[in-house]
């Protein structure tokens, strides 16, 4: 059944998440704590997909250009496709294995585009990526 979320509300909330996540500097309010579900799940899936190799306490400051898929020799189109594949896998992990649901106003499409934008931003770090995921998803035990 097609998604019936109103386009305006979906786009406006997705845009606000993108704007906050894409803003220069640390995302306001981003924290790095294993007691935060978004932080824990983001860290876990990045390690499971072998994009990073770090225990939780030292993973928050890892930059996006240090992820395993990142390669300066590849074209931007290739890198975008790879990042989308990672984002797709993480979305499915969050929703189908961790039981997370989308926050109001977001869906698979807006979540994937927002996550890909962060993954392709070499100035962003893992904790900021987790902050975006916290915005996009409602995790259990939140």
């Amino acid at each position, binding site marked *: *059944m097609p*998604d019936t979320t109103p386009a305006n509300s979906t786009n406006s909330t*997705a845009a606000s998440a993108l704007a906050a996540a894409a803003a220069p500097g640390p995302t306001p309010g981003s924290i790095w704590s*294993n007691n935060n579900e978004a932080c824990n799940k983001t860290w876990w899936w990045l390690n499971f997909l072998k994009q990073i190799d770090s225990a939780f306490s030292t993973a928050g400051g890892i930059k996006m250009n*240090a992820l395993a898929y990142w*390669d300066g020799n590849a074209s931007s189109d290739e890198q975008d496709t790879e990042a989308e594949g990672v984002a797709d896998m993480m979305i499915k992990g969050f929703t189908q294995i961790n039981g997370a649901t989308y926050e109001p106003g977001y869906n698979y499409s807006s979540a994937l585009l927002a996550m890909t934008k962060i993954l392709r931003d070499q100035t962003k770090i893992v904790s900021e990526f987790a902050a975006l995921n916290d915005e996009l998803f409602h995790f259990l035990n939140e």
Partner: protein
Amino acid sequence: MHFDTRTVFSPSPPPREERAGERRPMFTWFESPRPSPLPAWAGRGSCFLWVRASRCTRKTGLVLLALFLLRGVVHADTNTANQVSAISAMDAIKLTGSQNIEDAFVNILNNPDAVNALTYGLTNTLLQTSQSNALLGFINDLNLRPKVFQTKGAADNAVLGLEYNFQKSLANRVLFDTTPHPMGISLTLDASGDVATDASKNPNNLLESGGSLHLFQGIGGISPMVRRDTNFFAVINKAQHDAGEIPPSPNWRDDPRWKNSAQMVSKLIVPQLFYDIAAHGTLESDQQFKNKQYTYGCKVGIVYRDWTDQSAFTWMNLLDYPFAAIRWLTQEDKEFQPSGRAFPVIVGGIDAVDPSSDPQRLNIDPNKSVYPRTRLEVHFRTEALRLAQQDLWFSADFRYYQELGASQAIQNAGLDQQKFFVAKMDLPYKFNISYSIGKLPLDQKNDQVFAVGWAVNF
């Protein structure tokens, strides 16, 4: 003050003889039809009323508008700080009364209080209503910035202008959202450019307007047979939380907490095929649409991944066999096992290319028309070995470009086809060694290059 009014016809459709080679600007001057049964301002459907105010009128109107907005802010806003800044801004605007309109505008822009008060008034008193509507939502992503263009030469050469930037996501839809393989569709519009009251003095006389359509889907990834209930989620979430408590160490993955959580999830993972189809079209033109150019592009990206360490699908990754052998011999892997995460990424596409910035091509074929070019890109990246507690990667990238319908001169010169290959091997301590051969479309010559480099991430 006075007003000049003239009747103009609707710009669509223009007479046939006026279409050749030129698009009519949106606003122009035409002779009034004879006889004119109705005044121009009566609104005859296809007639537009063009009002040109004198310079004094424009200045007065600008100042009055600013004062009106500020007055609304002062009386409507309960924030004391905003009221104070609004009052000071009103004083600054009043002082511009004796200056020409360009200087008056610049003075307003240079007064932070005035700018803040104006924008606050616009967004909180004039545009905000109790009910949002589709029009406001549509223009919400429109960013405008007033400008003054100053050109060298005569003293009176400053013109007003406006920089606009509009990016709107029209749709972010999901198909099959209740299935394990949702499909996303995204449609966006974007426009940007600078416009000036006098086009001939606009130094950035380029408008770009376009749209893009994006379609993507990930097939697989998680087994559709996953049993989903509260207890299922609780067990896995707890295991992942416990893994997060592992202290940092070189062998942290050997901790039972990580192994337990990874094994629980690995049983639920299946190979993933992700594809991404994107198309875009753009119209580039000057402010009066006298010169315009269409560009377009389309690409398809495909990535296949098997995220588990061992599965039957990984044996299909023939490119990774040499590196699987290295990992096995260096005991990075306990068994000889190609990586399912290292399947090549493939991107294909077709683009419209503007040759105006390619002097080598223009020397051979002076035709500056946009031409279509297809491309194929294959990228491979795998972990080769682990040395000095660092993962060292090997990557290779191959790109192929082919122009469609190239002229005989371009074909004879070999400019209709380009190939490029680069391979890079990481070395310890951020060093790397690379080899490249071929040329990218804008390169001037073939290169065979060995290079040793050093990379640092900022």
